[in-house]
């Protein structure tokens, strides 16, 4: 079994005050921004690693390889190293100035092409499963996972909060030797919905699906020996009209800082006594539709 995990570096929340935005393009200057691995990406990787350990524990011969893939500036090589230290078997970073400035459409295109290139490089027919974080802590569009699935022609399910690989026997009975089936549960406002789908498929997981493991010193040492590949567009040879800013139909409009100030009114000065102020507050609340 081979699981591809899409991961994304995002600006470090503890250093948001250091983020620079290009006034012309209105994009974050990611090259200079202190980054961390997106929390949802970590959940996606944790889910893949959990499945890997279950698959390998179920049968001594079974192997499950977890591959991490990201598109980001090369300064984020360490985020792929982090994935390897967490337990991924291999990591790929797609990094080229030509990929910069991409919206979700162009990003998903590059990731999908990267995924195909990994299949070719690893001599695989297909990934059995692709897992991604449902939405990143920065853009939070939720677009990329499903777009990648569409580019690859795979079934997909977003907002997954529970994921199982089940084995179905010939008569639809669950059994160790049967066809693997992805059982993914998503949470709606009304209920939990479980979908079942044969491999391969893409699922986008929410952050409540698991608690990602800590990276250990031993994991970091093991990561030294794991393959970490960086591909530029010289390797992928993608049409420059389809990637980066040129391949992005989304154009940023105006940037503005919302006014969150909360101006107060001193009703005692306006109306005299505290009792009058209380009446005035009541009247204001009623005006807003609150209170009887």
């Amino acid at each position: 079994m081979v699981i591809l995990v899409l991961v994304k570096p995002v600006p470090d929340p503890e250093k948001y005050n250091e983020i620079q935005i290009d006034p012309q393009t209105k994009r974050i200057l990611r090259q200079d921004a202190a980054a961390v691995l997106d929390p949802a990406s970590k959940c996606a990787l944790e889910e893949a690693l959990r499945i890997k350990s279950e698959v390998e524990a179920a049968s001594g011969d079974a192997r499950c390889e977890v591959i991490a893939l990201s598109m980001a500036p090369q300064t984020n090589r360490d985020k792929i190293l982090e994935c390897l230290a967490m337990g991924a078997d291999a990591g790929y970073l797609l990094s080229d100035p030509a990929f910069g400035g991409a919206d979700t459409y162009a990003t998903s295109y590059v990731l999908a092409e990267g995924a195909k290139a990994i299949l070719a490089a690893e001599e695989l027919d297909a990934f059995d499963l692709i897992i991604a974080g449902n939405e990143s802590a920065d853009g939070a569009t939720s677009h990329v996972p499903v777009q990648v699935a569409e580019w690859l022609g795979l079934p997909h399910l977003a907002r997954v909060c529970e994921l199982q690989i089940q084995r179905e026997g010939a008569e639809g009975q669950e059994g160790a030797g049967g066809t693997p089936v992805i059982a993914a549960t998503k949470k709606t406002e009304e209920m939990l919905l479980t979908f079942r789908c044969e491999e391969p498929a893409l699922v986008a997981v929410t952050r409540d699906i698991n608690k990602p493991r800590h990276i250990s010193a031993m994991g970091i040492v093991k990561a030294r020996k794991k393959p970490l590949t960086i591909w530029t567009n010289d390797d992928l040879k993608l049409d420059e009209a389809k990637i980066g800013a040129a391949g992005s139909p989304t154009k940023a409009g105006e940037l503005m800082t919302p006014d969150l100030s909360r101006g107060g009114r001193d009703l005692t000065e306006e109306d005299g006594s505290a009792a009058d102020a209380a009446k005035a507050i009541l009247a204001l609340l009623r005006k807003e539709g609150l209170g009887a």
Partner: protein
Amino acid sequence: MDFRFTEEQELLRSAFADFAKEEIAPYAAKWDEEDYVPMGIVPKLGEMGIMGVFVPEEYGGAGLGHVERCMALEEVARYSAGLAMMVFTHHLGVAAILDYGTEEQKQKWLPGMCDGSCVCGLAVTEPGGGSDVAGLKTEAVLDGDTWTINGRKCFITNSHCAGVTVVTCKSGEDEKGRAIMTTIAIEKGTEGFAPGREENKLGLKGSFTGELVMNDVKVPVENTVGEIGKGMPITMKELGEVGRASMSAIELGILRGCLEDAVKFAKERILYGKPISKLQAIQFKIADIRCDYEAARLMTYNAAAMKDAGKVGAEFSMAKYFISEAAVRAARNLSEIMGGYGVVNEYAAGRYLRDAICCLPSCGTSEIQKMIIAGETLKKW
């Protein structure tokens, strides 16, 4: 000259920091308040690779070095210097076994010490003193294949939780009547060997400090760590290098706590209509803490890198002396920045100060460090 950590070391620091923020930070104040030793966290420290960070992989460790070990101690001490004391003393005993132990001892004890199932200790100090190692009175007499040990150790970190304690004993006298020392590992549960009084400390709560009592303790000669009669250089080397670099890292963690808390408080506390960070008097104190922290950082990791490179020198003592004093200074500065808030236990300033003061005598007082520094300086310059 490049003072940057490697990509791998930065990742390691970030991993240790995440762990400390999640597993230590929320509980540190409670451990301090209740003087509670969180033994439940030890297996997690093992899983993280912190207990055996510098132990080769073949014995269950991470196979990294003392720079990485000091990173772990700094990150743990950032939130709980007491817990870091437990880890550091464990490292001290582990280092003695790793550097001087037999292959059988390493295979027997190190895997458990790395995974956190066995805490290690190193016992030197006695009621008569700690720095006067030659004056120790705990006596080990070898009869055939068995040591018989009698004596009492005090102020021993991990006294009440160590599975194995490396004990420095007097095993004889030379022709001039000077003590011959031997280091011997004693396992928990050995008849006649038991912890005595547990100390109620000013700070560094979250770790056991207490007595170890030895009454006719019978230990096989196979438990001798290093050569018989070489206990003095073994003890001095481990305390002097692993010990002082470790104490520097723990004090560095306290310093970072002071720095982070001082900046946060100064930006949030409004006086005269503006944050107190705008006041020069506050800025001067923050500048002092920052300088102490940056100098401490360089000295700590220089000492650790020297240990990794197999170099010896007074730099270990310089780091311990400077950073011990700097941590006390920084904690006082923080307390003064915070005014009344600096002396209420709701904030960590008081804990930092108590912890910093308790660090002063560990692995040698400032005066002992200055004697070593002056000795080397007068010889070399």
